[in-house]
């Protein structure tokens, strides 16, 4: 069952800017949907349209099976929204603001007081609970935004770049929280940090210049790049590493590799299982006494796919007017356009 469905969603700001162009998107209940896109791709505009904060120029948004509009408070009742770099009433404190949010959601005093207390504690704002919001850092405001989005215990969370402005610890906690919340709620999270999406999302949409150029599972996204690659960090002398690379050419499963200093990126010919060729590679390293410091199997894969899709969209030129995408570099299946995230 879909929680969110957009149909031909288009947004033009006056005659100045085309922010979104015919976006068809479906988010299934229970999924964690990641919205990817470079800066200015239209992610925030899309999220504001989903919430009824902006009205579409064409098309429409259906949330929980009903049409979203600026006055559809009953639909927002079930949504928790975290804006990117949020701005809250500057003279309010976290307590007064979360209390107001609770009242807007129709929560009784009995409900909202314990709830806001636990949320303030959870996002580590207890020491600043009575300070005016205008004195908060970006990270603190984001954490308050997280608390506000959870105040009504929503069934659908829309978080716009939740890790923006957070320190590494805050970023980790946020991603952990997203993973945890993803077990019970439907989540839509936007980011241009691909590893975040890679870590928490099971489906993904890619926006480019206001157009949804990909919508499907993360696995499908990775498959568009058409390769299984690992990045190996090595330790050893330059001559030893050169010799190791020469020996690698003898391994039949390795189609291409590239060494950049101590890092070696290896692409395997097999598309499904890489354990056997990787084992042989490690045996060779052991035999030549090349120290392996780390092996990363996924790093760069999503990024590559993302960049590949953007470039392919760009290269498709005028024929984009008809919605077709160029074949992928490796001749594999085309990405799903406007489809459901569960392919």
């Amino acid at each position, binding site marked *: 069952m879909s929680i969110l469905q957009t149909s031909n969603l288009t947004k033009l700001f006056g005659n100045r800017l085309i922010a979104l162009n015919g976006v068809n998107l479906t988010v299934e209940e229970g999924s964690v949907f990641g919205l990817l896109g470079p800066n200015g791709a239209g992610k925030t505009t899309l999220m504001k349209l989903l919430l009824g904060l902006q009205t579409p120029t064409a098309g429409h948004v259906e949330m929980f099976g009903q049409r979203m509009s600026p006055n559809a408070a009953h639909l927002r009742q079930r949504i928790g929204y975290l804006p990117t770099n949020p701005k809250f*009433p500057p003279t309010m404190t976290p307590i007064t603001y979360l209390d107001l949010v609770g009242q807007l959601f129709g929560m009784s005093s009995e409900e909202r007081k314990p709830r806001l207390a636990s949320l303030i504690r959870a996002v580590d704002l207890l020491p600043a609970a009575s300070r005016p919001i205008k004195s908060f850092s970006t990270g603190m405001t984001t954490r308050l935004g997280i608390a506000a989005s959870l105040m009504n215990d929503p069934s659908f969370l829309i978080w716009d770049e939740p890790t923006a402005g957070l320190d590494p610890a805050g970023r980790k906690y946020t991603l952990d929280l997203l993973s945890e919340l993803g077990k019970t709620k439907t989540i839509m999270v936007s980011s241009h940090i691909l590893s975040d999406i890679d870590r928490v999302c099971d489906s993904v949409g890619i926006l480019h210049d206001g157009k949804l150029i990909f919508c499907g599972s993360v696995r499908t996204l990775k498959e568009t790049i058409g390769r299984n690659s690992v990045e190996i960090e090595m330790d050893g002398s330059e001559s030893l590493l050169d010799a190791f690379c020469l020996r690698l050419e003898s391994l039949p499963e390795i189609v291409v590799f590239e060494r950049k200093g101590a890092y070696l990126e290896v692409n395997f010919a097999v598309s499904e299982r890489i354990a056997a060729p990787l084992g042989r590679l490690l045996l060779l390293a052991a035999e030549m006494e090349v120290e392996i410091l780390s092996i990363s199997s996924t790093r760069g894969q999503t990024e590559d796919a993302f960049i590949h899709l953007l470039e392919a969209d760009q290269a498709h030129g005028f024929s984009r007017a008809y919605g077709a995408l160029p074949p992928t570099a490796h001749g594999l299946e085309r990405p799903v356009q406007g489809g459901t995230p569960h392919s």
Partner: protein
Amino acid sequence: MASSALFKAELLTLSRSWVLRGWLIALALTEFFVLSITLLQNRVRPTPASGILATHLNGFLLIWSLVIIVLGASSISMESDVISDGILSRACTRTQYIAAKLLSRAFVVLGIYLLSSAIASYCAWRFAANDMTLATVSAGVLVVGLAVLLMLALGIALSVLFNNTIFAVVGMLLLWYVASPIFSFLGVDYLSPASLTRNLPRILKDPDAPLFLQGAATTTSLTLAFSKNLDPPTAEDPANFLLEGEAGVTYTARTAVYDKARTSVILGGLELPPGKTIKVTVRNVTNAGGVAISPAADSMTVTVPHATSDVAPVAPSTGADLPSGESLTSATAPTSSGYSAAPTGATPRSVGSPAPVSGSRGTVGAAVPAAGLAGSQGSSGYRPPSDTPPSSAAAPRTVSPAQPAPDTPAIRAVPRVVLCIATVSSLRVDFSEDMDPKDAETVENYIIENPAGQTHPAIAAVYNAAARTVLLSGLHLSLDDPTKVTVRNVKDRHGNPISSRANSAVYSEVTVWKYVLGFGIPTLLVSALAMVWFSRRDL
């Protein structure tokens, strides 16, 4: 619940606003100084309570409108990001949000306004001669309150339209202060703040407050005419009539007799010097309801004639159907602002000045328009339409120091109609020049019509040379509609025909309900418009 939460949150935000805090401090200080000065001035030169309150309300409307405009115009535009991220992304509608904005600001501004008005009303009632009633005060406060609300609603509407607060504030200032000439041009003067400011004293003034209309003297008596019936005990106390001659000489009447039929008081037992002027001041005289005589018209100067008779003749003051100001020969009267007492024999108001009569309440007393009063300085007082024009000997000897100078050949200005004032049965036309009485008293020379083109013939026309006015009587007018009078075939004393471009005037009675609707309906419309705009606005 969302609505009340938003309302409370807005009140909380407003309570922390430095604009509001600064306003409260400035308002308190200003109120204190202005009221103190006004009340001190009142001891030297009495001002009626309506004048004091009108000054206060006008001051609030004109001076503090800037603060109200800033409060309204900054309400949305200053926090559009916060609105989107912090409020409207939650479970509330835009209508609820804008309504909370409007209501919270209206609550605060009107609360401050009502408190300030209550203090000013009390001071005016306590320390000045009261010429107001609870109903007139309520009406005045209501109308100004509605103007304040309109200002606030306009500010919020502009705040919705403009993202930039400065644009919103500048737009609002332009709209508010440029509105008056536009409304005046469109003929809906009562929609403009300037019109309200001008007419506020009349709205506040009790229409039943008696006015001292006319005085006539002999060497042994003084006959004083009033606009309303008086309370006999106060009217028959000679101590309530102060008579001052030249060089500060005072005279005391031995008797005071109240003539209820003529609403006049005859002061007897006097020994007044022939040919001299006497200033008559009436104090502590009330009507039957206890309303004091208006200090705006409580004194005048009369000249004691050389020829004497037992009792000086004076025209009866027949009350409600008097054309406003017609009897007020040289009585001190409301000035252009309508409430401050003009010195006796003040210079007539410039005929070229705008003298709108739209604020008239159409009844004698409170209805007397400024120009009509200050400008009537003739020697012939009011004459009932049925009377024959009085001869100079029969006319009451009310002389003004500022009586128009004798005609001179140099005066050759083209005569024009300055204004007209109507009651249901009569209409007064004011001219800019001294007119030829023969032309001026020919009723066929006047076309009186309503907007539907229906004409109303007058039965009689009486010209008052000193006041340059013609009183047309025997009419049956409906004051619900504007009344237009067009003058033709009339020349001045020098033979100059009336200007073809200024030969007509319109009397449009503005009552409180017109102001209530004039400000109330736009307030509702602008508020609704702001809600619609806000619902369609992208955040």
